[in-house]
């Protein structure tokens, strides 16, 4: 049977378990005694192993089995966890990712690539360090006379082999006599299900690893009677220690060393880089450069997009289904009322109208709930994306030799799926920046009297009509003087006079701006912050940067809740109607004359129960004529933005209503204080105000 049709389902299912494994392992490093967590990780590995076996992917199954065994030993407390194990297991997760990606792309994955890692994991399980394990293994191999060349034998026999009176098992037995079979795997993919099976046709083929002191010809001889119509490939394999790791490949590619040197270096059980340096083949600087590149390549894999399908909380769906049920009931009740009406029922006309009214308002309520429920389906918790960053920070920090912990909060904050997808890339960039430039080297930190371990915070929260995502580090902070110097030399500004601290910091969002002394591959090539800003602005969001020299930097991204239907407060200014999103409204009041104060050159303030709130006259901000000239004749709508309150002065309030937010279209230039337009119940067009934009424009 062709099991490959199950592969797509397997790939999808496995992706979830892989994520679980990865996050679990990272968590486990922090809380090694959490047995519940360990069980959870074990279960994920076990599921991958089981389901890959079921759908005919024995390679993945075999590989995961090794992981599972190590996890099982940890679970049974036969082993205690240490960092080497987490590293090996994380690498194993990467390997499984690659294997599964190969299944998804329908490409071949060379299983031999797993061998070194499998061996390492087994060594860890042997309660020895990998080095001693290798040594012991080697001794054992010599003692048993098992040392010799490893051959990978691919044996695809003729389908007619049985009819020729030959049992391949005999050949395999003969092969075993030549040395030791390290692994043998029958490929059963071509075997059909029983009803289609011709028992006299051979569908199997084999991959065998044989270690023998004999040469290739001797191995070939085993197949001498069948080689005419069978396909036999015998390839001498590198021993696992000779497998060239990524760094080696990169060094060769860059032309820094020859492959030969790498191989020689690999025969020694030391860090590859150190050996090449000590042999004078390259310098430490070159190695570091390539090491960084290695870090970047690893980081690239985190940029994968959010999948195109969406996972919906069952409660949300149940809720919707309930509402639809209610709607159907109301509909049939309507029908009945109409029927009674037509028959001129004894209940009388008045009674029917009353019932219609009641049913109508019920229908309205249901409609509104369905609307909200449907919009909520698009919302995803940011945790899905955030979790991935733990790994990113761990890898980047290791490659930079820094000790950094990523603290995540607000994973449950929900964002529209489309927005979440697009915000991932800028976040990767910000986090890389924090790790690379924000956080000082350990020596620098110690010299500055800070703890060597540093922290990067990634948090999300909802405030009013927006979601905020912040990346904060406790590093060196931005150097104000250097930014100014750079801006002056770039001609971005002419003088620093009149620039606030905030404005200076936000200069780095301008194109072509980087103050990094050292340009590395991880970040800091002068492109970046402006791209981050552009990406966020494309989502109608904004980026703010706060920094304190020596204490750290916070980049805060504000993203509007993209719900297309918003609750709004309709207010009139002159002849125009504007909608203020309810989510940002605190209260509305008509200030008495004596609580309105004018501050010289600072505008007006309203004293609301002892709190002074800046007053923004919308008629002035929007440059349209208003009916009321004095605040005590109009209405002050108190809104909040970034933890501060602002009073927006309007002529009068028209009421609260739900409006469908529409884009103004590309023909209109970008207006900061308007987030869109809507059509009111009476057909008039009203503009929806963007409170954040207004506050920023008003400079209060």
């Amino acid at each position: 049977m062709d099991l490959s049709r199950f592969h797509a389902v397997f790939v999808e299912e496995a992706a979830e378990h892989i994520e679980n494994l990865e996050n679990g392992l990272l968590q486990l490093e922090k809380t090694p005694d959490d047995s519940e967590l360990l069980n959870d990780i074990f279960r994920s590995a076990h599921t991958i192993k089981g389901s890959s076996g079921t759908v005919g992917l024995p390679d993945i199954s075999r590989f995961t089995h090794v992981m599972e065994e190590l996890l099982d030993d940890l679970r049974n407390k036969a082993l205690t966890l240490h960092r080497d194990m987490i590293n090996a297991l994380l690498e194993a997760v990467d390997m499984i990712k690659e294997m599964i990606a190969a299944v998804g792309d329908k490409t071949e994955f060379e299983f031999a690539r797993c061998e070194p890692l499998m061996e390492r994991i087994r060594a860890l399980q042997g309660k020895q360090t990998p080095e001693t394990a290798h040594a012991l293994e080697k001794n054992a191999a010599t003692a048993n006379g098992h040392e010799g060349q490893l051959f990978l034998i691919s044996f695809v026999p003729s389908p007619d082999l049985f009819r020729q009176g030959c049992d391949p098992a005999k050949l395999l037995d003969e092969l075993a006599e030549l040395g030791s079979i390290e692994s043998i795997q029958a490929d059963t993919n071509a075997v059909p299900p029983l009803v289609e099976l011709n028992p006299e046709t051979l569908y199997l083929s084999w991959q065998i690893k044989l270690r023998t002191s004999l040469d290739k010809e001797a191995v070939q001889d085993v197949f001498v009677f069948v080689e005419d119509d069978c396909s036999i490939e015998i390839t001498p394999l590198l021993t696992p220690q000779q497998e060239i790791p990524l760094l080696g490949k990169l060094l060769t590619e860059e032309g820094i060393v020859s492959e030969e040197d790498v191989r020689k270096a690999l025969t020694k059980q030391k860090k590859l880089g150190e050996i090449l340096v000590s042999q004078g083949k390259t310098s430490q600087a070159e190695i570091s450069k390539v090491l960084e590149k290695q870090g970047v390549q690893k980081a690239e894999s985190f940029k994968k997009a959010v999948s195109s399908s969406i996972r919906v909380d069952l409660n949300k769906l149940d809720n919707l289904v309930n509402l639809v049920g209610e709607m159907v009931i109301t509909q049939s009740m309507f029908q009945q009322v109409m029927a009674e009406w037509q028959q001129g029922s004894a209940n009388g006309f008045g009674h029917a109208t009353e019932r219609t009214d009641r049913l109508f308002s019920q229908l309205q309520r249901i409609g509104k709930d369905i609307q909200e429920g449907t919009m909520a389906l698009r919302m995803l918790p940011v945790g899905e994306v955030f979790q991935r960053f733990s790994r990113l920070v761990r890898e980047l920090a290791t490659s930079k030799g820094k000790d950094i912990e990523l603290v995540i909060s607000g994973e449950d904050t929900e964002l529209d799926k489309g927005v979440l997808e697009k915000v991932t890339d800028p976040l990767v960039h910000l986090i890389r920046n924090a790790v690379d430039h924000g956080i000082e080297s350990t020596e620098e930190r110690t010299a500055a009297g800070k703890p060597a371990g540093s922290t990067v915070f990634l948090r999300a929260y909802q405030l009013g009509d927006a979601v905020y995502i912040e990346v904060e580090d406790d590093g060196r902070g931005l150097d104000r003087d250097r930014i100014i110097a750079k801006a002056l030399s770039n001609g971005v500004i002419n003088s620093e006079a009149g620039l606030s601290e905030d404005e200076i910091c936000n200069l780095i969002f301008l194109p072509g701006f980087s103050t990094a002394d050292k340009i590395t591959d991880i970040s800091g090539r002068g492109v970046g912050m402006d791209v981050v800003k552009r990406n966020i602005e494309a989502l109608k969001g904004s980026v703010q940067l706060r920094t304190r020299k020596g204490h750290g930097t916070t980049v805060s991204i504000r993203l509007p809740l993209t719900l297309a239907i918003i609750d709004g407060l309709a207010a009139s200014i002159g002849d125009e109607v504007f909608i203020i999103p309810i989510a940002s409204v605190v209260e509305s009041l008509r200030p008495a004359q004596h609580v309105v104060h004018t501050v010289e050159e600072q505008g007006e303030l309203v004293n609301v129960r002892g709190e002074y709130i800046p007053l923004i006259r919308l008629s002035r901000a929007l440059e349209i004529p208003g009916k009321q000239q004095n605040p005590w004749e109009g209405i002050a709508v108190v809104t909040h933005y970034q933890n501060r309150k602002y009073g927006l002065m309007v002529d009068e309030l028209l009421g609260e209503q739900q409006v469908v937010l529409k884009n103004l279209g590309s023909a209109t230039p970008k207006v900061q204080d308007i987030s869109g337009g809507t059509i009111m119940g009476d057909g008039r067009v009203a503009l929806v105000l963007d409170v954040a934009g207004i506050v920023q424009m008003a400079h209060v």
Partner: protein
Amino acid sequence: MTGQLELTGELTIGMAEELVTTLQKALQGNPQLHVDLTAVEQLDTAVAQILVATKLQAIQNAIPLTFSCSPAVSQRLRTIGIQL
């Protein structure tokens, strides 16, 4: 109810046809099936291949299928790299 099918003796390609028929019947008549190979003294590649095909058929028919093997059977399956 789990159906039981016990196979004995030396299973070779000579009885392959017969074995296929037996296994097909067993798969059709039972919601789940256990094939007992503990009394099998020997088996060849052709028969091992039939067992693989049986397993695939069981997956296709959504019938849980289990095997129990004699040491000789386990040994043979291992040396030809087949996991049931």
